[in-house]
């Protein structure tokens, strides 16, 4: 089953208010959610709670929501909850790898109040103009919170090569935004 088929069959369970929807969601996407959350919060216990809360939110919102990709829908929720959790925990336990990624993002993007809701669209437009590999690396690093080493392994690159590509992409993004009048 591809993601769309999987989504359809699981969403059908949610719509039928069949609690096996959660079991199925966990079976198919549980590990994915855990890894995404762990990449952000940096520890298993917090990630487990974020993922549990994600399931609760999905159960609450589907229906009426009918997401075309359950995986993307889940990842947005789990990411959001994990960011909030990370924010709350930050003073006590920092995830060094994520901190580096955040620092890199902070260097190349304008202040949040300047971009606000435009950011996703701006980034999408920029990334779609980029080479596919660079786009995937950027999203992998800054959306999915994957470490440079893991990206390198996956794409058959050296960590150095990944870092260089990410740096170049960030520089281009910076220039792209500057051209559009944003102050970094």
């Amino acid at each position, binding site marked *: 089953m591809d993601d769309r088929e999987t989504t359809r069959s699981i969403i059908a369970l949610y719509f039928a208010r069949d*609690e096996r929807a959660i079991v199925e969601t966990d079976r198919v996407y549980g590990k994915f959610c855990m890894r995404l959350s762990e990449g952000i919060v940096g520890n298993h216990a917090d990630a487990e709670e974020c993922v*549990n809360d994600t399931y609760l939110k999905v159960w609450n919102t589907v229906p009426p929501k009918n997401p075309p990709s359950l995986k993307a829908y889940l990842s947005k929720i789990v990411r959001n909850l994990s960011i909030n959790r990370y924010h709350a925990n930050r003073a006590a336990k920092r995830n060094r790898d994520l901190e580096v990624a955040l620092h890199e993002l902070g260097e190349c993007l304008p202040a949040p109040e300047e971009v606000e809701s435009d950011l996703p669209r701006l980034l999408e437009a920029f990334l779609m103009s980029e080479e596919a590999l660079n786009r995937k690396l950027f999203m992998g690093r800054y959306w999915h919170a994957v470490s440079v080493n893991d990206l390198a392994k996956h794409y058959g690159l050296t960590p150095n090569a990944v870092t260089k590509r990410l740096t170049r992409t960030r520089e281009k993004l910076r220039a792209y935004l500057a051209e559009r009048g944003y102050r970094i």
Partner: protein
Amino acid sequence: MTYADKGLSLYALMNDMSDELINESDIRGCAVVKPKRERSGRFSAFMNHPAMVAVLCAVVSLGVLVAVVMAGREGPVTPPVGGTLYGEESLLTEESEASTLRPNISLEDFYASDVYVSYSPGYTLLHCEMIPERYVFQSANIGEEMLEVESVGFEGSEEQIAALPKVEDPFELLRFHVSETRRTLFVFIHDADMNLIHRASLDVAEPVLTDKLAAGVYYVSLHSEWENNETYGADEFVFALSLSKEIDSLKIDMVWKEETEDTLPSESQEPMTESVTQDSQETETRYEATEQVGDYTLIPHTPTAGINDNYFKISMTATEPGKALMASANYRLYRLHGDEEELIHDYDVELAVHEEPASPDDYAVYETGVSLVWAKNNLEAKGDALTPGWYRVKFARATLDFELTDETGKVPEVHPFKERPLPVRVYTSLSTEDMDLMEQYERVYTSTYKIEKLWASLTKLTVTEANPPEHIRSGDGLGIHVTYPDGTKGRIFFWGEQHEYFYIDDGPWYQAPPEEVAALMTQIKNLLSDPT
């Protein structure tokens, strides 16, 4: 604001990126059962990977000698004649030791219930270490990136890693993986031209002798299979195996899996890609031939409970043994007025069942549930209601009459909390957009004192059976996740504007007076701030 603070805000703002970008860039994968035809495509892509060709050349020219890794399901690994696996007297030569002992990671992220692994052509397995929930195969790289040493894959300090038990037999780890996830794991061994020369299942215990492997370079790939025989492609998981001398006396604790013999390569050694493709086609054909759905039975679940608790267990059985099931059928609900049927709800249930029977003699069976809640919503949207009375449900060729009763307001014979043991762990959470409020309820309790206090309040709630309106099932909810002394888990969800409706696990709905629930919520907050 530091760059990192700014980054965190921006990071959160990025959440609304498009699904396409998110899915395209996900490298972690998930446990989606994939059709076999996809597998062959990925494998082909792997074969054609330029790095693979380079690695092959590099491997052959190096002529590195490495130990053999094979194992059975039970008992210790039988070492190859003339040496021990990874031991002092292994097949490693001095020359190869120099290169292979360089610490490196070839196959990482082998999680307990996940088979998403990245391939690392050119790596030779030396030994592996097991880290709880994170398994790292430590190896030397004999491929084109031979000189690179990457310290990736480990989590924890050197002391922590050193303290972990060493797993000298990597397949021991894989067997653990198999038993954890209840999958079958196949090992494929290919020669340097990627012809499949050996295929074996790791979950078959009987050891056999094989003389198929001679000196040369081999590649080993692992493929796992779900219980329902859907193969999950793990083609990426390939490592090189270089043997230095005749090993026809090597004992390998693996056997051919009988039912797969027909897909094994012949003496002419069909390339692996061909074998997979043929396999996929067979599977495809089998599915196409079994589109006709079998017999259905409808089993009412909790038929006399409140209306909201009714759902139907639909059981399907294939028409012929050995056939898979594909199901898409129409579900109709009628209100009965004597013998007269009034159609009140109608929709297609697409179950997407691709269930293969365990053996050619078995009938494939699939069960699912259809809730009445959706029908109830539709009726309410039309100004109608699912009232107590007789109804009929038809699903494919099956029909079932049932009576809906409404026991709202009835006091249950046994208080729902009194019949449950005192949990040993409790986690409370409130689902709300208000993060500050949410945090006031989020906590894990392991203190017996606190759990007893919380449980005492729950057992004191005045409880009646309920039939809550549908809209309360959306919105904020209080979740109480519990772990009982025997390790089983349960959950209690409170819903409604005042959290007055709740259910435990999959049980029926109950209602408690809002003021009692409000007191419970206050108590939870107080427990959080209670330092004892």
